[in-house]
């Protein structure tokens, strides 16, 4: 089997991934926690990283891959600079979420480094419509509020 070429930066990354796994005693059952932590550190989970995790937790790469592909939270490619996640749950729909999603998607379509995604309930259903902007939760997003919030974080 070919060994990956190691540069000093990939060595540090490898060490950090192993540290994350150790945080959970290298338990295979903690795979989802490990994936969250790795993604928080690097923005996404690359092929090489998946291999490291599989080795540390003593599971197959197919198992790691299977879990990553099952859960919506995990990315195998880098995310753009700004991520807007608009809730499409029924409560938010009753307050115009579908229109908000369409309008926002349209408004940013020519702007690089912004992605608009749909999510299903953020637990903010009494303050609908709701969305997160780079992970921060917002509510009462009727009207132009979301677009001004996006402008604020991207300016």
């Amino acid at each position: 089997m070919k060994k990956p070429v190691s540069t000093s930066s990939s060595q540090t990354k490898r060490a950090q991934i192993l540290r994350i796994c150790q945080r959970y005693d290298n338990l295979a059952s903690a795979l989802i926690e490990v994936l969250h932590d790795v993604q928080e550190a690097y923005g996404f989970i690359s092929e090489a990283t998946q291999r490291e995790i599989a080795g540390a937790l003593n599971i197959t790469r197919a198992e790691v891959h299977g879990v990553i592909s099952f859960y919506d939270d995990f990315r195998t490619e880098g995310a753009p600079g700004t991520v807007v996640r608009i809730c499409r749950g029924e409560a938010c729909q009753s307050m115009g979420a579908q229109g908000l999603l369409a309008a926002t998607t349209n408004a940013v379509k020519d702007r690089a480094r912004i992605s608009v995604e749909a999510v299903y309930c953020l637990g903010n259903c009494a303050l609908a419509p709701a969305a997160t902007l780079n992970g921060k939760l917002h509510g009462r997003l009727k009207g132009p509020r979301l677009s001004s919030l996006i402008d604020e974080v991207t300016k």
Partner: protein
Amino acid sequence: MRVWIFIPGDSGAVSVGADEVAAQVVELAKASDKKIELKRTGSRGLYWLEPLVEVETPEGRVAYGPVKPEDAGSVFSAMLAGDTGHPLCLGLVEDIDFLKKQNRVMFARVGTIDPLDLHDYQAHGGLEGLKKALATKPADIVEAVADSGLRGRGGAGFPAGIKWRTVAAQEATQKYICCNADEGDSGTFADRMLMEGDPFLLLEGMTIAGLAVGAVQGLIYVRSEYPAATKTLKMAIDIMRDAGWLGEKVGGSRHAFDITVRRGAGSYVCGEESAMLESLEGKRGEVRAKPPIPAISGLFGQPTLVHNVLTLASVPIIVAKGADAYQALGTGRSRGTQAFQLAGNIKQGGLVEVAFGLTIRNLIEDFGDGTASGKPFKCAQLGGPLGAYVNEDMLDTPMDYEALAEAGAMLGHGGVVVFDDGVDMAEMARFAFEFCAIESCGKCTPCRIGSVRGRELMEKVIAGEDRQASIALIKDLCEVMEEGSMCAMGGLTPLPVKSAMKLFPQDFGIAPDETKKGGKNVVAQGT
């Protein structure tokens, strides 16, 4: 003289500016000659009034809301001057009608105390249940829970006592208490409010459950959409452990119990208990075949007590106050209090904890004050995305397990999502199939394929193509999904679809009587 000011740190309140208001209060306090103490609490659950700011007065806490960051200055001055004439002043918080009409049992402390102050918790009745449990025989704790009539608050409403007896009766080297904090249903946020606003109550409930059934390990599965709850729970666990209420010797006894928090990763079906257990084992969240039930073979194949957050949060109260006191609340076979959540197009959205016995109308009209848009009410969806829609004619149905089942609806986790007359129910039926297609775990065909077919057929109905035939096919498909799905994801998706069709045939472009025509001889495609 010290002035106490309270501002929620609840993520719903923060989503509409509570942190900005708090930051201003901190600045204003520095410039003031009075000694100001700011306490961040959970939310009272009066979300239409958030950010809701309170100040302690000799008469009680006086509330102001909704306070926008730009109003913080004038509200601050009014609070210090005791000026209740400020336009945002709501008077004594306890006298606000929405709160006054409730019976806060599980949520008694939420919104009033610092969620991570164990002294505050104990000063308001916290740990009384656990202390009593430590002095009680495990079998008697199990019987108290059974006698209370407590039923699971996660959706299915299964009697808790039966599960506890089953887990307690198993001989095993390891047993687990797993708290389901996946709260994926649209229209629900009570678990989040409780975990953020009174985390010790959940931890206390889990610990009592551990003592009762003989488990030493607890896990809380929190959805990743709730980062604040995750953080609060982890801190609360450390505080409980440092104080000796978790760990090797719970409260100085010979009993051990500890709790770990695990995050979900954006999958709705992981709220289904066996999918949650798979996820807790680090696997794909695929539903397991039943039997065996988790109480016999659950996490890592060991006996596991799985409960929703609110079921476990009721336990300390049942143990502290007695099964009879709990059982005295409610109606029929629905005992105790229920946390209803008013959401969507509603003027006064928020948390309503009351003893069972209210009607849907009481909730939507008396508490919720009608639609937020001011347009006429059209329908409400009860119990999340897999729950039925109800129309105006059904509003006098009592909100309890049996009455709703009789009306063809379900209570679920207590969510009530209100829609005004702008909603197109054909679109909502299409969405129900789409949601199922997105969230299906893929284990069985009726759900995995049926949901996609259902969405396509609904698209045809909406486009006006082959309407009659498509509707007949949808009905067959619903039957196949109901009968052939392994879990309620596929099995209950037909509920919102069929109720929408039955109550609002005009939205589907069909005459009322046509919805009654079957299509039994037509075989649904792809199943």
